[in-house]
């Protein structure tokens, strides 16, 4: 049975989710502050990948990280080699497509934390950095965790942008979603069935986690 595409999907999605957390949490925190200049413009820029057709996203990424693109040339000059058609390209595609889900969900989480908690912490002499880590993030954890689940699910499901920048190389960049398409094209319906059922089960598990969070029953 072709398990490699699924393992690759999980591994790519896990890395994309981690990068989304590192990049997205500070962005979400900034966007949750009403005094941020140009807040609407930032919101549009950050959420755009959510509504763009994935192939458009993939096209832009190709221009950026392709061998002739600025990031692609820069990476090769640094001796990192080619990015396109590698698993790294799949991670980049999954990250760009899924990070907006984390930002949006975490931002909603941050906005629900009453500002008086941070104010109280300020009068107790704590720095903004310490307040973010000890007060704001722990109080917004529900939104952040929901964001992680959505981001991971979206990253696992990434197809259009991934196929454009990472291609469909068996055993290298062929993720679960792409492997299903490939199996159907080749008439291998048993493989397609197997992968589809496993991906469905994973998606259902993510929804279950979200439902539990929403009900507030905790863990």
């Amino acid at each position, binding site marked *: 049975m072709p398990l490699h595409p699924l393992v690759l999907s999980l591994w790519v999605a896990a890395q994309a989710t981690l990068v989304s957390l590192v990049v997205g949490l500070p962005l979400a925190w900034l966007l949750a502050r009403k005094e941020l200049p140009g807040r609407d413009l930032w919101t549009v820029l950050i959420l755009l990948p959510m509504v763009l057709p994935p192939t458009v996203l993939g096209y832009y990424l190709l221009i950026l990280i392709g061998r002739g693109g600025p990031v692609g040339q820069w990476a090769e000059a640094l001796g990192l080699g080619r990015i396109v058609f590698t698993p790294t390209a799949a991670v980049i595609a999954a990250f760009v497509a899924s990070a907006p889900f984390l930002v949006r969900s975490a931002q909603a989480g941050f906005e629900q934390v*009453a500002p*008086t*908690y941070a*104010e*109280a*912490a*300020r*009068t*107790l*002499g*704590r*720095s903004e950095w*310490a307040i973010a880590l*000890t*007060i704001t993030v*722990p*109080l917004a954890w529900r939104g952040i965790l929901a964001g992680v689940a959505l981001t991971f699910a979206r990253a696992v499901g990434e197809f259009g942008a991934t196929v454009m920048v990472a291609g469909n190389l068996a055993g290298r960049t062929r993720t679960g979603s792409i492997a299903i398409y490939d199996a159907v094209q080749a008439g291998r319906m048993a493989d397609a069935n197997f992968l589809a059922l496993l991906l469905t089960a994973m998606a259902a598990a993510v929804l279950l986690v979200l439902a539990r969070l929403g009900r507030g029953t905790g863990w």
Partner: protein
Amino acid sequence: MVSLHVDVRARLGTFELDVAFEARGGITALFGPSGAGKSLALRHVAGLARGREGRIVLGERVLFDAAEGIHVPPRDRRIGLVFQEYALFPHLSVGSNIAYGLHRLPRTERSVRALELLRLVELEGYADRTPDSLSGGERQRVALARALAPEPDLLLLDEPFAALDFRVRRELRGMLWALQRRTGIPMVLVTHALSDVRELADRVVLLDGGRVVASGPTERLLAAPGTAEAAALLTGEDLA
């Protein structure tokens, strides 16, 4: 003795705050009806709001000077604030709430000091409780202990008894008065209850519509309000 001089002009939406008052040792009450600007004045002293014009000085330290462009951030003001709804951190235990402002102490000393403060507000044995398991009066005492923990130069209290019933209110007034005398930390409390002013305040500042109507030692002001406007504010029982 550390004294506080406040002179602030600020605008919040359509509300215009224009207040000048001072607080010396003991307890000073900012008294007035709701919407008078009492809580807003307190936020300016704490540094959580920034005025358009004016100057705030605590002892020798200039905390705010619009002309000089000085605005000391709240974390460097050494001013404690007890919030109206207490603002206890819901995810931290009572002990951790109190120790939150003790980050400059070595870790081992923090819990010792937190326990000391719990004893001070008569809540021994409460260190491991969560804020949501406490009564209103208990929350108020934890908030008080938390604000006193870093040994501030000044303690501000925003409507400290508003949410409490009569009996708890009387108890806590007694505790606050005793704490002030024991620690010597000057306190400024915001209230719309004349009974708080009578029983606690050494000095009172009367506020209405964002302006100071009158101010002075409590007994003198209660006996001779000076103006009809001040008299009207002081004759009613507790203001709405």
